[in-house]
C-alpha cells in the first residue's frame, strides 16, 4: 500500500465527504421532461395507503422507507412483513412503538426466509382449518443485503427451491449499514467500507441472477429511484403464488458517502450507467426493462461512470488513484460484460 493510499484512507475515514465535488451536485439533474410527464400521471393514480408512519428513526434521505412506501401502496394493509437486524429495524422505533402500520415479525439474522416460510405456511394451515378467516395476508420480507446475500442466503435459496408463498424483498444498499458500513457480498469492488479501508478487492456476487437460476415464480430487480417500475413489479408479484424475489437497489447516504439529498439521483445514475440492471423474470423467462435493455443493446449511451464513481466518497481511492482511468475502464468493461451476459439470457 502506497503512502498516498494510506493518507487517502485516513482522510476518507475521518471525513467521508472530503474531496467531493459538492458544489457540482445540484447542477446535475438526471431528469428529462418526457420522463417526468410519464411519471406524474401514474403517481397520481397510486393508492393513497401509506404503510409507514411519519417520523421514523431512519437517516435523512434513507431509501428504505421510500421503498417500503411503494411496496405498501401495492400490498396494502392485509400484509405482514418479516425483518432481520438492519437499518430498517433500527429505525422502526423502540418498544413499545413501531412506525409500521402492518404487523412485523422481527427475527434472527439468518432466519428471514425460514421465518416467512413459517408465517405463510401457518396462514395456509389456519385458514384451511377455519381458525382464521381469509383472505390470506400477503407475506413479505424486507431484508438488507447482509441478510440476503450473506448470512441469510442458505434459507433464501431453500425457500426459493421450495417455492414457498411469499415475496422476499432485499433492499440492497451494498454494505452492512446497520453496523456502520462493513463490506457485504453486495459491496462492489473498490468500495471503501469500515472493513475494507483499502477498498474491496473482490467483485460483488450477482445474487439476482442466482435467484433467477432458482427458476422461481418471479424474480425482479428494481430501484427506489424508479418508483413506477418498482410499483409495477410489486403489483405483478402480488398476483403470483409461490416464491417471489425482488431486489431493490437502495443507495445509502452514509454508506456511499454521498449527501442525503443524492439518494434518488445516485440510484438513477446506477441504472443509467448500467451498474445496476433492471429486469424481471417469470418462471425463469427474462425480460430486460428500460433503460437497461437499451443500454445493453447499445441503443442508448450509458451515463458517465466516472461521475457516478467520483460522486461517491466510498470510491475515493479510485477517484484519487493515479490508475483511475484504467480502474474505471475495467469497471466499464465489467458492466458491459454483465449486460452482454444478461442479453444472452433473453
Amino acid at each position, binding site marked *: 500500500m502506497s503512502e498516498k493510499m494510506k493518507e487517502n484512507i485516513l482522510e476518507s475515514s475521518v471525513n467521508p465527504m472530503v474531496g467531493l465535488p459538492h458544489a457540482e451536485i445540484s447542477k446535475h439533474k438526471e431528469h428529462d421532461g418526457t420522463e417526468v410527464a410519464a411519471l406524474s400521471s401514474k403517481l397520481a393514480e397510486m393508492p393513497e395507503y401509506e404503510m409507514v408512519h411519519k417520523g421514523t428513526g431512519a437517516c435523512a434521505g434513507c431509501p428504505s422507507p421510500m421503498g417500503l412506501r411503494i411496496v405498501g401502496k401495492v400490498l396494502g394493509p392485509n400484509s405482514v412483513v418479516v425483518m432481520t437486524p438492519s437499518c430498517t429495524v*433500527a429505525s422502526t422505533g423502540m418498544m413499545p412503538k413501531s412506525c409500521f402500520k402492518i404487523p412485523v*415479525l422481527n427475527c434472527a439474522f439468518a432466519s428471514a*426466509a425460514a421465518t416467512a416460510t*413459517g408465517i405463510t*405456511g401457518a396462514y395456509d394451515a389456519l385458514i384451511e382449518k377455519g381458525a382464521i378467516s381469509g383472505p390470506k395476508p400477503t407475506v413479505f420480507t424486507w431484508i438488507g443485503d447482509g441478510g440476503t446475500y450473506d448470512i441469510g442466503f442458505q434459507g433464501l435459496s431453500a425457500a426459493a427451491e421450495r417455492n414457498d408463498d411469499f415475496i422476499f424483498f432485499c433492499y440492497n444498499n451494498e454494505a452492512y449499514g446497520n453496523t456502520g458500513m462493513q463490506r457485504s457480498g453486495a459491496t462492489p469492488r473498490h468500495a471503501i467500507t469500515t472493513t475494507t479501508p483499502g477498498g474491496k478487492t473482490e467483485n460483488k456476487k450477482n445474487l439476482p441472477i442466482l435467484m433467477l437460476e432458482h427458476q422461481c415464480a418471479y424474480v425482479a430487480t428494481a430501484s427506489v429511484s424508479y418508483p413506477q417500475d418498482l410499483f409495477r413489479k410489486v403489483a405483478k408479484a402480488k398476483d403470483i403464488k409461490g416464491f417471489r424475489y425482488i431486489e431493490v437497489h437502495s443507495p445509502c447516504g452514509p454508506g456511499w458517502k454521498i449527501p442525503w439529498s443524492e439518494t434518488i439521483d445516485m440510484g438513477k445514475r446506477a441504472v443509467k450507467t448500467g451498474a445496476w440492471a433492471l429486469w424481471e423474470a417469470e418462471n425463469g423467462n427474462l425480460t430486460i426493462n428500460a433503460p437497461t435493455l437499451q443500454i445493453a443493446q447499445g441503443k442508448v449511451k450509458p451515463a458517465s461512470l466516472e461521475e457516478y464513481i467520483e460522486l461517491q466518497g466510498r470510491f475515493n481511492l479510485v477517484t484519487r488513484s493515479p490508475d483511475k482511468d484504467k480502474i474505471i475502464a475495467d469497471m466499464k468493461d465489467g458492466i458491459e460484460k454483465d449486460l452482454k451476459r444478461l442479453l444472452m439470457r433473453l
Partner: protein
Amino acid sequence: MSKRIETGNTACALAVLAAGIDYMAAYPITPQTTLSEKIANFAATGEFTGKYVLVESEHSAMSAVAAASAVGARTFTATSSQGLLHMHEILHYASGGRLPVVMANINRAVLAPWCLYADHQDSISQRDTGWLQLFCSNHQEIYDSVFLAYKVAEKVDIPVMISYDGFLLSHSLLPFETVDDSVIKQYLPDRDPAWRLHPDIGGNFSNVAMAAEYSAYRHRLADDTLKSLQIFRDSIKEYENLTGRKQPDLIEASGTENANVYLLSMGSMASEMELVATELTKQGINASALKLRLYRPFPSDELVNILPDGSTLIVLDRNIAYGHPGGVLYMEARSALYESDKKIRVLGGSVGLGGVDLTVSVLLNEVNRLLEVAKA
C-alpha cells in the same frame, strides 16, 4: 385407549398426530430422522392434516415453527444433537418471544468427535435458553409428554422441549397405551392465543427494546418459568383424571419407602436405576430410585420433600457440567438442598456419555463407588 408396541419415535409421532398440530418443519438427523419420516408418512396418507415443511436446516426449522407459532399455529419440530445446537439462537428467540413451540429432542452426543449415541449434553447445553424441559424414560412418557407439553406451553406461552435418549428409546420398541382422540381434544382444545401475527390484530413483534423493557420481559419469563411448576403439576393431574391412568410425578420415587440411599437420574437411565435400587436393597442398603421427569424448571420442592433427613443422595448424570464436578443434575440437586434444614449427603457422577451402555451392573458399580466416597 389401546395398547401398542412401537419405537419411541413412532410413539412420539402418534402423539403429534393426536395433538392436532397445525404446522411442522423439520430437518433429518440421526436418531431423530425416523420421527420426522413417520410424520411425513402420516402427511402423505392424509392422517396428518397440518402443514409440514421440509426445511434445509435446524436453524430454519426452529425459525419457521417459531414464526408459525406467532401466527397462532400449534407447531412441532424435532431434532438431535448438532441440530439442537444449530437451533440454539432461535431457542432463545422462541422463549423470549413467548411462543409455545413444542419440540422433541432425541438425546445424542455432540461434536467433537462424532458420536451417534445417547448423551444429554445436547439438551443440557440449552438449559438457560428459557425452554421448559421434560425427560422421558419409556415410551408411555414420550407419548404422554407431548400432550402435557402443549398443555403447559400454551398456558404459560413458553416453549417446551421433550427429550428422550437416542436409540435406547427412539429406536427401541416398548409397549404404551394410546389415548382416544376425543380425550385428547378435551385435554388440548385448539390453541387460542391472546395475540397473533395478523393484520386484524397488528403489532410489531420483537423490535428493539431499551434496557428497562428488555429486563422486564426477561424477568417475567423467569418468573413464569418458575410458576409453570404448578401448571405442570395441575396439568398432570388433569391428564390423569381424563385418562384414568396414573402419571409419574415430577420426581417419581420407586423402591423402598424411607430409604437411606436415593438414586436420582433422568432419561432412560432412570428406568434401569429402579433395578439398581432393588439390587442395592437386596444387598442390605435401603435404596429408592428417583426419576426426574421435569428438568426445567427444576422441581426443588419435590426433591427436598422426598428426601428424609440424614439420607444420602446419589446423582448420576448422562452429561458433564464442565467446571463443576459431575453433571447438571448433581449441581441442581445440591442447589435445591442448600436451603433445606435436612442434612443430606449428595454425591454425583457422570456416566453413560456417548451411549456407554448403562447396565444394572455398570450403574451399581458407580453407585457403590460413590457410596464408598460418602463413607470416607
